[in-house]
């Protein structure tokens, strides 16, 4: 058996925690710019950011590219650029701002709960480790 790596033991949760915290910043930025003319609301593409931070095994089964003209599915998200995507506005506004404060608040609340869930998972993993170390 391979030696225990704390990183591998903690799994996806430590990476997820980072992404949730980044998403919190993006949502806070949307709320701060709720009255800025022409500001376009953004959100984090969770899957691509988590994959980029090395926390996902989404690339475990890549499509084989056997010909030069085949599209590389792995770099598809990289080709579209940033992991930040713009929100599709529900209704147009006179000043070109696409922030919906209610939607952003809901997303922020959801993000908070997910952050707390990831924290709980991590905390339990540490407790498990402590049980193993102290043998009680």
């Amino acid at each position: 058996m391979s030696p225990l790596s704390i990183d591998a033991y903690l799994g996806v949760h430590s990476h997820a925690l980072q992404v949730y915290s980044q998403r919190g910043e993006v949502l806070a930025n949307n709320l701060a710019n709720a009255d800025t003319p022409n500001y376009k609301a953004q959100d984090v593409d969770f899957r691509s950011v988590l994959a980029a931070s090395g926390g996902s095994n989404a690339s475990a089964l890549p499509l084989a590219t056997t010909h030069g003209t085949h599209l590389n599915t792995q770099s598809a998200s990289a080709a579209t650029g940033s992991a930040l995507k713009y929100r599709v506005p529900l209704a147009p506004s006179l000043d070109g701002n696409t922030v919906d404060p209610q939607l952003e608040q809901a997303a922020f609340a959801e993000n908070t709960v997910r952050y707390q869930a990831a924290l709980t998972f991590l905390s339990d993993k540490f407790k498990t480790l402590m049980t193993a170390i102290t043998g009680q």
Partner: protein
Amino acid sequence: MSSFKVFDIAGSGLAAQSVRLNTVASNLANADSVSGDPATVYKARHPVFSAVRAALAAHGGTPASEAAVRVAGIVTSNAPAAVRHDPGNPLADAEGNVFAPNVNVIEEMTDMISASRAYQNDVEVMNTSKDLMLATLKLGQ
């Protein structure tokens, strides 16, 4: 540490909204400051917000450090001053007219409510982020 940036962002929102509240207070306080000269009469002031662009680095996944909102400037309204015939007023001009500021009190009140709600939103974001950070500090205990 990157996660403290959320406080900067919410803080910039608080600062911007309080500038907006200040201009509302100034406009409402001067709503009745008449003058005998349309050039010197008080003009309604409004802040203009601008976004400091947030861009995730293509793969690093870290938002640009200066993601926030800032007050780009304060503009004065170009709407014409309201003319009022009031010969008894000591400030009246030769024709007995005084000029009232172009402040729309109803617009200012709705602006105040909007600014107040946005301010409360930013405070909530700050409080929630603070709670999360405190919970993170207690991780593993």
